């Protein structure tokens, strides 16, 4: 047995075994955000969710949103661009901390 089992994704709702009211509120919110076309289409939302899934390295979400992207009509080019956006953001967020480093260098007159 692994810590992550793909079959566990289907058991997500079981988290509501205790304090079901809170889980119900979560699913309500989650489905309202991701499950319908709004100002963003379901496809655009699925691509964002895929990018977030990869950035946060959640195997359940990567599985679910790879499928959701395909089922909303996205193609591998679009999906790959989405995860590159995540990767570029991660790189940017790392590099922008270089300014902190520069600040320290300046403060130390180095």
């Amino acid at each position: 047995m692994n810590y992550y089992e793909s079959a566990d994704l289907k058991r997500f709702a079981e988290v509501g075994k205790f304090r079901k009211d809170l889980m119900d509120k979560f699913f309500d919110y989650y489905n309202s955000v991701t499950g319908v076309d709004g100002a963003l289409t379901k496809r655009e939302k699925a691509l964002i969710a895929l990018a977030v899934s990869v950035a946060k390295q959640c195997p359940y979400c990567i599985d679910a949103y790879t499928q959701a992207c395909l089922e909303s009509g996205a193609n591998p080019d679009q999906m790959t661009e989405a995860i590159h956006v995540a990767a570029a953001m991660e790189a940017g967020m790392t590099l922008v901390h270089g300014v902190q480093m520069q600040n320290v260098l300046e403060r130390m007159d180095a």
Partner: protein
Amino acid sequence: MSMMEIELPLLSDMPTIHDPHYDFEAYLDRYNLVLKPSIIDTLQINITKLCNQACRHCHVDASPKRTEQMNETTLRQILQILAKNEEIKNVDITGGAPELNPFFDWFVIEAKKLNKHIMVRHNLTVTFDGNPVTGESKRYLPEFFAEHNVEVISSLPYYQEYFTDKQRGKGVFSKSIESILLLNKVGYGTEDSSLHLNLVYNPAGAFLPASQQSLEADFKKELWQQYGIRFNNLYTITNMPIHRFRDNLIRHGGYNDYMEKLVNAFNPVAALGIMCRTIISVGYDGTLYDCDFNQMLEMEIQNGVKKTVFNFDYKKMLNRSILFGSHCFGCTAGTGSSCGGATV
């Protein structure tokens, strides 16, 4: 019963037609659905299993090696049925590549004389590939279709090369684009033309189609911008878990996941629109079936004796009981699936 309660079968134990783990009729009962034929307005005839292609998802298992052909006697009998039954307004000719039946051209001309609407499931590439057995050219097809006002329905799994070639073979996308351009040139696909060209999308894998409306908009935009192509409608079709596609799923361990996906997406409204309620499917030897999928699974219409075009009786066919199997979940998932696309 939720899918979580299902104990999944061993792959080697999986029955082809009635898999008790995916019991379609139990779902009809659960939703109090009694699906009977409503009218028979279409004869869908499968006139050959010969094809110039051998696509990964083909439920017919068609290929250049197949030899089954509908003969002239059977085709003449179908013409008699069409002449006698005004209710049957549409003839949907499929295969294989139906143009590879030696009587195809003659049959289209004769059926047209009976004022029937003719649809041909045209794979686009046969125009360039020709007959893989005889080498006969099929370059005349666009003009032939236009001359006889045939509705052309063609599979194009995606508006890009990757998904299309992955499913239908290397080089199919570019050949299909050239073929559609030829159809456009003779008048197909423009809004003011009576020559209709409809494209068919099916997913390039074990997933459900996106909404027909949104995919049609994508296809129209991309194909126009990239290639200057026009077409009328896009039909989205769900991959059926039978034959070649099913075998691939089993080989890659995805059969149960796919069946669960179809079952979880069961839509009773889509079920009301399934195509077996309005068509009769005819096999190359004249045997009658509820749909092309039942035909490929050899689920013959029985009602006492085997039904063929030679004992066809419209009223009896209208009152028949439709045969269902686990594959029928493919037609009722999400927005539904039929030879004319989504049913909801």
